């Protein structure tokens, strides 16, 4: 028996690729990516979406589904998902090699616009550096800040966290 078992607790690659919006829909607007792949008793994402794009049709244990044609990437669902499992990805229209991802962030220090941070993949490995484009730290986010960071568009399906270069005191 080999000891390759430290790699548990990650979503399945197939599920991840199915959750990603198509290139065509991304060309329209930014889109939410819902990485919620288990039947768990939870449904706030459904009510979070003002456009009715997210659905759980039966009970509250069903996995949510999203209609990317209705999603405009507003990111209201990002901070309302208790599992911090929703991200928004988008492509820069002026420079399609660049894109961005919005992630829920509950750590200190709170990033600031313009700051350069490390971008991490799902296993916490640095994949590149990026500039913070926006931070939503409003009352509505209730301390689950939504941080938008620039990412190479080729890494949109891999980038899932940031690490600050700056530390708290």
């Amino acid at each position: 028996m080999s000891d390759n078992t430290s790699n548990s607790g990650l979503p399945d690659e197939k599920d991840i690729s199915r959750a990603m919006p198509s290139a065509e829909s991304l060309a329209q607007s930014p889109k939410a990516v819902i990485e919620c792949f288990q039947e768990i008793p939870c449904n706030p994402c459904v009510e979070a979406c003002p456009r009715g794009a997210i659905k759980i049709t039966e009970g509250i244990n069903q996995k949510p589904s999203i209609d990317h044609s209705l999603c405009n990437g507003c990111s209201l669902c990002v901070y309302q998902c208790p599992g911090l499992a929703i991200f928004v990805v988008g492509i820069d229209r002026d420079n399609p090699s660049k894109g961005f991802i919005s992630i829920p962030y509950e750590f200190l220090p709170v990033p600031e616009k313009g700051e350069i941070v490390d971008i991490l993949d799902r296993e916490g490995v640095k994949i590149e550096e990026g500039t913070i484009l926006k931070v939503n730290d409003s009352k509505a986010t209730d301390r689950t800040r939504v941080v938008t960071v620039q990412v190479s568009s080729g890494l949109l399906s891999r980038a899932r966290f940031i690490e600050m270069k700056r530390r708290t005191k």
Partner: protein
Amino acid sequence: MRIEEHPVLTFKRYKKIVFYFEGSPVEAFEGETIAAALIAGGTATFRVTDKHQRPRGLFCSVGKCASCLMVVDGKPNVMTCVTPVREGMRVEKQKGKGDLT
């Protein structure tokens, strides 16, 4: 160690007080338990067991086990995890079953 900054929580720290652990002064805040104040100050061992002299520290922190029993103001078997710390309190490591004499 005390948390100074937290992304979600703010800690209301009430009046700073001083109590004594094994005769040495320790700083604490009113409203804390004896155990929390000791852990904040870096104390690991709260008592030593009777039979095998094993060191014991805090374990459950909710008054359900007997790991954190100490002698407080001369009284043995005090559950320090659910007892608020008070100014001037004298807290000692409990050795074995404690002693009332």
